[in-house]
């Protein structure tokens, strides 16, 4: 069994984000990065399949030099090989272009299962996975919260709203886009990190994949990124924690809830 995990390196959840001077992206030169949270769960899903039997796990990412770190981490967690793709054309890109490029990566070999996160923590698009499934002509399920491999198929649960879950049976090969919380994500052990240094990491350009900048020209671009305008907002209580506390208590009393 061969599994492809597509992952993205995004700003660390605790990074302080600011809009960059051009006003179309964040200031990303001096912040910490991490593997996208959703993708960590996807990787863990793949690694558990590997742990349970025979599987090779390949991780792929489209990202600049710094993204090598995310792939090394994934290798440290237990993935077998990595593919990193970059071209300056991706500096301003859209989901369709990313999905086309990932499709080219996937088509270089033959995968039984493709897993990735439902969305990225930066763009929040939730488009790449179903787009990639289409380009690879695979059935897909998004918002996956449970996946069990059976003979030639995978039984999945898809999260709907308000605590409802949809059970679906999907023939392999297939693509799954996972929700957060689906499993307990492992950390890379020291031994794993050491081993990762020797694992293959292939760097590819667009032309290596038979693509060019024209093939990945975006149809969607960011015109403006900005801090959401403030509405009326909450009445803010000022002072020391003790002063703030007594004002809050006064309010709760006023509401008749004490």
């Amino acid at each position, binding site marked *: 069994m061969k599994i492809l995990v597509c992952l993205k390196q995004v700003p660390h959840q605790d990074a302080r984000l600011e809009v960059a001077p051009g006003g179309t992206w964040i200031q990303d030169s001096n912040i910490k990065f991490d593997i996208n949270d959703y993708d960590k769960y996807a990787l863990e899903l793949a690694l558990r399949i590997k742990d349970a039997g025979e599987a090779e796990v390949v991780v792929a990412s489209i990202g600049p030099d710094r993204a090598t770190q995310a792939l090394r981490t994934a290798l440290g967690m237990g993935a077998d090989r990595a593919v990193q793709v970059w071209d300056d054309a991706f500096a301003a890109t859209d989901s369709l272009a990313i999905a086309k490029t990932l499709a080219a990566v996937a088509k270089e070999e033959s995968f039984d299962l493709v897993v990735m996160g439902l969305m990225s923590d930066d763009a929040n698009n939730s488009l790449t996975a179903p787009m990639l499934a289409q380009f690879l002509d695979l059935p897909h399920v998004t918002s996956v919260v449970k996946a069990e491999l059976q003979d030639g198929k995978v039984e999945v649960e898809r999260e709907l709203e308000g605590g*409802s879950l949809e059970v679906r*049976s999907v023939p392999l090969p297939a693509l799954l886009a996972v929700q*957060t919380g689906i499993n307990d994500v492992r950390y890379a052990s020291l031994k794993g990190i050491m081993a990762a240094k020797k694992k293959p990491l292939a760097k590819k350009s667009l032309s290596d994949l038979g693509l060019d900048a024209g093939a990945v020209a975006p*149809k*969607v671009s*960011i015109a403006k990124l900005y*801090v959401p305008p*403030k509405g009326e*907002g909450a009445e803010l209580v000022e002072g020391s924690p003790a002063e703030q506390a007594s004002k809050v208590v006064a309010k709760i009393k006023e509401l008749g809830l004490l």
Partner: protein
Amino acid sequence: MAKVLIVGEIQGGALREASLELVAVARGLGGDVVSLVLGKGVQGIAEDLSKKGGGKVLVAEGDALEAYSADTHTAVIQQAVEAEQPDLILLSNTPNGWDVAGKLAAVLDVAAVTDVFRIEADGDGFLLTRRMFNGKFDAQLRASGRTLATVQPGAATAYEGSDAGSVEALTVSGLSSRSTFVEVRKAAAGGHDLTKADIVVSGGRGLQKPEKFDEVLEPLCAALGAQMGASRPVVDAGWKPHEYQVGSSGQVIAPKLYVAVGISGAIQHLVGMKGSNFIIAINKDPDAPIFEVADLGVVGDLFEVVPALVEALKQAKG
């Protein structure tokens, strides 16, 4: 002017409110509006939509459409797009909406933008506004050419006018789905029903460690006689069971008092609690979106504010 195709969504045998919100968005653009309703036994829903601003409503009926499937829905919507040649295709940003949107955009090779709350025409395309970075920033996106967008439920008020539209059958043959629908089930419910509580105190990722829920949040719950809730990351990390989760994929509650502690206020969380009668937010980030829906805001370190609050509550009660 832009021609818009609305893709209606059926849930529990009825058209979702969110689909009527799409009608409002489409009508706001001032061009032609056509709609698509697909499912089994949906003729009546289509007729109803045609009278509620949906314009000409295409209806695709069939056994193969009884349960949602990305394969069948993509095929039907694709056919409606080919028949109507819209400039803009609107779906709701729901689990089915985002499951099909990307696939459809790839099939049609068109610009796609999800979870938008504002759309304006712009040259041969559109300007679409949405949140990014989990709610930290807004972004205005420029989409060129035919565009597919999913609209955030609740972003617009459902269209309330009544207009005389029409209904037309859309015949789609040879539909098949590679994956099969088995069932929809409810996540196992525990004994922790937040919907009945007068006061709910929820903790978020800001609490940093599972033991802080016992050490810091539990005393506040006790002092207020509140039930404890949580945001999704807390449940994802296994710190609290799913029945604690407040939000679009958890419980939707409207207590007399909701206290959000160390919760940023992502839209999926807000959906679950913004109907509360009174909301107090405690967060160290003055720009946290939770302060936009809160009535009373405390900007500060929760590890200082919450113990102080517990103390003050004890004193007030004597």
